[in-house]
């Protein structure tokens, strides 16, 4: 199978690159293991301010609703964090005190939404809080099929959200704000907005333990958009080896496709960091498993860690080396048709940001490099 570009990794970076290339008329494939960092997405695009016109267009065409405002957002454990570009699910406030009286609603038996932490955090800001639990037979039925976790609840909520809104209206006394767990709109992203309209108070959705419902939904929207543009999405597969000659990769082998190699002019490596297995570690070093790319790292493993859990961890900074065009470097030489994007770069590229910002900025940068190099080639 032959493509202009093959992208390894279907997280935020890989999807954005794939969509941008398809839009530019390129024929691409994305090889995705399935889960990625979007499954624990906070809903705020880290290190991004106002979206560029290009990003805004991409999101809007994919149906991803975002908004932008410099302010703070409520975190699941009741703290506040500065935030800017976020999904519509996330409320952005000018200051942490966003209400006076707050009703926090959880579902009985749901342990992944931290209502008492939220209440304490809001009370610290001078808000009065009341916590109430809804007991719903529909969720008890879901419980029979496994533990109550965000995705299970969200599946039910897609069906019964109107009933839930009704129950909340009955619970509501004189509160001006209602806080609900972020378990709405898994498949239908209009539901959070419709709940906001159905309840006569400001509705704020607070995050839960992953999987993140807004993140899972965003992933599905990006994939739908990519496939609509004609991209080939190889779900549940992973690149296992690259075939190269003189520093140029001509094809990759994947786990599922056996001897049917994916050939392409360019390759984008968006396989993520350690958690996503884009990088792997053993007691002696951190390596990149597909191409064995160069990685900046200290010899002594003891330097990988900060003994303080909450401190910055050096190991998170180690990523594959690239030149300034994001060409991946192997044995000291930049590979001219391989680009590394997203968290496989490590989190220490100040010009690219971190998290979602790093993913999006590096994806666009690699796409531009590919488009420039192919137009140069066609001119020759």
């Amino acid at each position, binding site marked *: 199978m032959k493509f202009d570009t093959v992208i390894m990794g279907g997280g935020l970076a890989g999807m954005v690159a794939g969509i941008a290339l398809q839009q530019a008329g390129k024929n691409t494939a994305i090889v995705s293991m399935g889960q990625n960092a979007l499954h624990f997405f906070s809903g705020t695009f880290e290190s991004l301010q106002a979206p560029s016109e290009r990003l805004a267009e991409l999101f809007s065409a994919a149906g991803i609703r975002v908004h932008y405002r410099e302010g703070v957002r409520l975190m699941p454990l009741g703290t506040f964090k500065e935030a800017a570009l976020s999904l519509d699910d996330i409320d952005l406030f000018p200051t942490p005190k966003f209400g006076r009286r707050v009703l926090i609603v959880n579902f009985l038996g749901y*342990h992944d939404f931290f209502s*008492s*932490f939220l209440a*304490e955090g809001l009370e610290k800001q001078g808000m009065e809080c009341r916590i109430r639990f809804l007991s719903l037979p529909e969720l008890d039925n879901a419980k029979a099929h496994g533990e109550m976790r965000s995705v299970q609840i969200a599946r039910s909520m897609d069906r019964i959200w109107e009933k839930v809104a009704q129950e909340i209206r009955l619970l509501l006394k004189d509160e001006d704000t209602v806080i609900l767990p972020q378990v709405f709109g898994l498949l239908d992203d209009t539901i959070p907005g419709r709940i906001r309209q159905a309840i006569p108070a400001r509705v704020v959705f607070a995050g839960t*333990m*992953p999987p993140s419902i807004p993140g899972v939904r965003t992933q599905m929207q990006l994939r739908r958009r990519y496939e609509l543009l004609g991209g080939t999405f190889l779900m549940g597969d992973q690149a296992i080896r690259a075939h190269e000659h003189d520093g140029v990769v001509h094809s990759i082998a994947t786990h599922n496709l056996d001897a049917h190699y994916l050939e392409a002019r360019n390759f984008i490596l968006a396989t993520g960091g350690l958690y996503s297995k884009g990088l792997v570690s053993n007691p002696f070093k951190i390596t990149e498993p597909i191409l064995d790319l160069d990685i900046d790292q200290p010899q002594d493993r003891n330097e990988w860690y900060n003994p303080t*859990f*909450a401190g910055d961890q050096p*190991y998170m900074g180690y990523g594959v080396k690239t030149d300034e065009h994001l060409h991946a470097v192997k044995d000291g030489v930049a590979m001219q048709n391989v680009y590394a994007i997203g968290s496989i770069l490590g989190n220490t590229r100040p010009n690219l940001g971190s*998290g979602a910002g790093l993913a999006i900025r590096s994806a666009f940068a690699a796409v531009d490099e590919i488009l420039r190099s192919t137009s140069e080639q066609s001119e020759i």
Partner: protein
Amino acid sequence: MNPNEFDVIIIGGGITGAGTQRDCAMRGLRTLLIERSDIATGATGRNHGLLHSGARYAVNDAESAEECIRENMILRQIAAHCIDETDGLFITLPEDDLAYQQTFVEACRKAGIGAEIIDPELAKRLEPSVNPDLIGAVRVPDGSVDPFRLCAANMLDAKLHGGQVRLHTEVTGFIREGDTIKGVHTRNRQTGEETDYYATVTVNACGIWGQHIAELAGVKVGMFPAKGALLIFAHRVNNMVINRCRKPSNADILVPGDTVCVIGTTSTRIPFEECDNVAVTPDEVTLLITEGAKLAPSLSQTRILRAYAGVRPLVSADNDPSGRNISRGIVCLDHEERDGLKGFVTITGGKLMTYRLMAEIATDLVCKKLAIEKACTTAQTPLPGSEEKSYEAVAQKVWEAPTTAQKAAASRMGTRASRIRSSNRRDDDLICECEEVSVGEINAAIDRLDVSTLTDLRRRTRVGMGTCQGEFCACRAAGLLVKAHGCVERERKDLADFLQERWKGNFPIGWGDTLREAEYTQWIYKHVLGL
């Protein structure tokens, strides 16, 4: 009567202290146990969890070996829900001297330990994970024991006999009148509250910290801090304990326990200042993996969950730099006889296996001082939870058709599992999926077993001990603690402390899946949950 007055105060919430309190309480004494941290935070909770048959000591220390096998048989009867009767193998590898096997077996038989030489082929069938190159094998009645559970059960029984327990409470000094200890000054480390407690006899059962407590009382007990490092693997690779049949050395015991297995240990003398915060070094990690893989080769491919280290409370005897040649013998000091200080007793030395015997010896001395004549019954009376031998039978009785999670609860709680049977089906919600711990079990621990922090809860229920190392369950369990204690502020700090404590045991082995999991945990707590 003054509510702060007791017959006996026991300092130290390890297994020796808990066992001593139980024994004293069962003989009718009014008891108070004071622990500066939580139960089993010293050597009690930082070892293999090996139910020694005594075979390991048979050749060099016949007395310890005999004590071990006697207590081994007793614990099987009185602590069934804390024990897994796995049996053990002593294997001879090609590089070991097979002649030692004969010496070993003879010494075992002399000490009363059933040691049976078996065909290496049979050994491989009995324990498929064992190194297939073995040239000799001896089967012995080793087993595994959950020291946290054992400690909690002893303390619970003491409380059922009227005893009182003050955890997170530090002894800051002694109340002394002339040549007599009359009680202790204490300070609660969580609230800062200072309280004086009085008793006719005070027992120092502080393990390696006993030297410091003795100093506070004005007497000298020389201890020898010897660090032992261990690794926990994420799977139960072996079903029988595997030992090397040779002179005791580093990393030659592999013990299965619940869902994991533990390799250890090393032995290094450390300065006293390090006892409160022992760290595992990279060299120790390497040694443990290399030697461990000789017992069960698959260990070299198995994910490591944690590294940890404990400090053996050996009583100083000679100048041996490794501490291995010192007897694990029990030391009970009557400071009245020894130093002319009345009302003060130190019980130390010994080991997890002989805690009950140590408790008996200490209690005999306490009773003598109080002029009470009452025989010890701890060897015949099952601990709470251990009234029934099979946890499956318990689970059946409580739930009729128990789920695997309910069976897991019964294996941890024994007959006390009946306490979590309730009409509220929310009690079945799982908080910790790795170890299958339910809301009901956690609430039962909070109700009865003095839980103030997540780390306390972990020791009593195994919450957060599994492969995710608390990544998912810590927050959930924190929610339940808030409900019980009503303080979010405190719980927020507790959650941070818990994660820090998990990380401490993770980063020394921070590679592969362990580092993956850690990266995920660090990312979500910081960026997604906002701790």
